[in-house]
C-alpha cells in the first residue's frame, strides 16, 4: 500500500491544505511567485501536514485552525530545502531542477527567506505562546543540526551518538513538533501532546535512518541522485559508521577519500558493494526498527480512533520502506 492510501480519508482536508499552501505563496513579484510555486509543485509527501492533521484529530479537530499549523510546517520544510540546494549546489531535487539551478543562488536565497517569512506570518495568527515556543526552538535546533552536518563532514572520528544527535535535529524534531503542535491546537492535554511528540520523534529517527540506508541500497533512478551521494558529500551516516567496523571497508574508504583528485563513479560503486557485504545495512535496520517500536509504544495510551490507527499504519509503512 502506498503512503497516501494510508491516510486516504484525509484527502479532502489535504486538498484544502494544498490550496492554502498555494494561496500562501502568491508573491507580488512574478519570479518569486513562480519559484515558490515550482517548489511547491516539485512534489513531496506532505508528511508534516499529515502528522499535524492526524494528531489534531485525536482532540478537537478544527480544520480552519489547524490548517495554519499544517501550512506553516510545510512552508518551513520548503524554505529549508531551497536553501539546502544552494548549500549542496544541487541541480536536481526529486528529479526536477532546483530553484538555484533555474534562477541562481540569489533568487534561491530570497525565495527561502520569503517562504520562511510567510510561514511565520501564518503561524502568528495563532495566539498560543506554547505553539511559538515549541516551533521556534525547533527551528533553531534544525539550523544547528544543519551547521553540525557541515562541521562533521568527512570527520571519520565521529560516533553513533554524534550521528543520532545530528539526525534528531535534521529530521526528527520537525516531525515531533508537527505532531505536538497538532495536539496543542487540537486541545489535547500535556501528557497526550508529549506522547505524540515522542511518536513523531521516534518516527523521524527511523525515517532518516532508512533514508540513509536507501542511499546505498536504492538505484540512482529511484533516488533521483547518484547512489552513495551522501557519502560522496562527506556525510557519515549509520551504515557507514557500522561498515567502518570492518577493517577492509575502512581501509578502502580512507584510500578513496584521502587520495588526491575527485572520487570516481567506479570507486563509489566499489565502496557501496563492499559496504553491502558487511552487516551494516542489517544492523542499521535493527536500529530503525527499535525506533519504530518506540513510536508505536508512545501511542499506546492514546484513545483508540481512526487517527491513532493511521499513525500506527504510517509507522508500519515507514518500517517497511525499501525504496
Amino acid at each position: 500500500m502506498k503512503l497516501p492510501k494510508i491516510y486516504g480519508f484525509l484527502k479532502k482536508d489535504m486538498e484544502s491544505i494544498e490550496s492554502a499552501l498555494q494561496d500562501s505563496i502568491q508573491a507580488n513579484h512574478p519570479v518569486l511567485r513562480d519559484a515558490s510555486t515550482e517548489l511547491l509543485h516539485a512534489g513531496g509527501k506532505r508528511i508534516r501536514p499529515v502528522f499535524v492533521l492526524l494528531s489534531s484529530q485525536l482532540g478537537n479537530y478544527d480544520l480552519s485552525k489547524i490548517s495554519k499549523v499544517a501550512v506553516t510546517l510545510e512552508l518551513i520544510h520548503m524554505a529549508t530545502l531551497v536553501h539546502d540546494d544552494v548549500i549542496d549546489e544541487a541541480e536536481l531535487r526529486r528529479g526536477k531542477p532546483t530553484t538555484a539551478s533555474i534562477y541562481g543562488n540569489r533568487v534561491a536565497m530570497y525565495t527561502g527567506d520569503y517562504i520562511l517569512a510567510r510561514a511565520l506570518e501564518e503561524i502568528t495568527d495563532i495566539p498560543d505562546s506554547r505553539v511559538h515556543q515549541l516551533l521556534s526552538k525547533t527551528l533553531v535546533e534544525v539550523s544547528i543540526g544543519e551547521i553540525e552536518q557541515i562541521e562533521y563532514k568527512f570527520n571519520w572520528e565521529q560516533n553513533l551518538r554524534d550521528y543520532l544527535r545530528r539526525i534528531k535535529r535534521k529530521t526528527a524534531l520537525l516531525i515531533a513538533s508537527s505532531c505536538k503542535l497538532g495536539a496543542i491546537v487540537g486541545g489535547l492535554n500535556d501528557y497526550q501532546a508529549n506522547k505524540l511528540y515522542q511518536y513523531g520523534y521516534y518516527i523521524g529517527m527511523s525515517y532518516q535512518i532508512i533514508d540513509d540506508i536507501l542511499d546505498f541500497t536504492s538505484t540512482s533512478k529511484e533516488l533521483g541522485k547518484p547512489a552513495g551521494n551522501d557519502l560522496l558529500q562527506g556525510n557519515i551516516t549509520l551504515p557507514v559508521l557500522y561498515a567502518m567496523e570492518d577493517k577492509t571497508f575502512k581501509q578502502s574508504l580512507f584510500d578513496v577519500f584521502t587520495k588526491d583528485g575527485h572520487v570516481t563513479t567506479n570507486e563509489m560503486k566499489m565502496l557501496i558493494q563492499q559496504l553491502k557485504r558487511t552487516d551494516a545495512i542489517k544492523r542499521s535496520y535493527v536500529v530503525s526498527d527499535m525506533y519504530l517500536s518506540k513510536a508505536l509504544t508512545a501511542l499506546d495510551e492514546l484513545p483508540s480512533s481512526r487517527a491513532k490507527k493511521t499513525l500506527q499504519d504510517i509507522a508500519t509503512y515507514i518500517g517497511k520502506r525499501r525504496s
Partner: protein
Amino acid sequence: MTTFITRNQSYRELLDEKLKYGYIHKHIQQPLIDEAKWGLLQFLVEQDRSLTPMQRERYLITTMLVQIALDTHDLVPIKKVAETEQETLSKQLQVLSGDYYSGLYYFLLSEVGEIEFIQTLANAIREINELKMALYYKDSPTLHEWIDLTKKINSMLIVHVTQFLYDDTANELITDWLIIQRLELEKEYNNSVIGETTINNYKKNVSNLVQTLSNQTAFITHYIQDQQNDNVNISTRI
C-alpha cells in the same frame, strides 16, 4: 543612573553573545552591524515609555538579528559552483548562519510571548524580499531607480518597527536618513560612484523634513538632527 551609551554597550554585549557561534566564525567573518540602524533602533525602543526593559531589549536585539540574517544572505555568492573548498564552506555557512539568526529572532520573541512583534518582523522580511527581487530583476536601472529601491530595502525593517511602536511614523525621514548613512558607507568602503550631489540632495530633504514633521515625531527628528550634527562614525566592525 545608566546612560544611553552604557545601555548601548550592554545591549551590544548581549547581541554579540547571541551572534557567537564558534564553528561559524572560525570560518567566516563576523557579521557587520549597521551602526546607524542600531543607534536609531535603540533610540526608538527607549523613547517608548510603555515598554518594559525586557521588551526594549528583545525588540532591539531581535530586529538587529533579522537585519544581520538578511545581510548575511546577501553575501551568498551569485556563482553556482564554488571553486575552492574554502569558498564552498564559506558559502554554506553564510546560508546557514543567516537561517540560524532568523530562528533565533523567532525564539527570543517567543520566549517572552511577543507574538505581534514576531509578525511585524515577518511582514517586513516578506516585503524586503519582494523588493530585493524587484531590484535583482530590474534591467539596467537608472541611478534614481536603484536608489529608490535600495532606500526601501534598507529602511523597511526599521520602518515596520517604528510603525509598530508609534502611530505617527516619520517614514520618509527615517528612510532618507538611513540611505545617507548607507551611501556614505558605500563611498568609504567600496569607492561607490554615488556622488556628493546625490548625498547632499538627501541631506537637504532630511533637513526639510526635520523642519516640517509633526510634533508627534519630534523625538525622531531631534535624534536625527543630533546625529547629523555630530557626524557620528556609522560603521564599526564587531
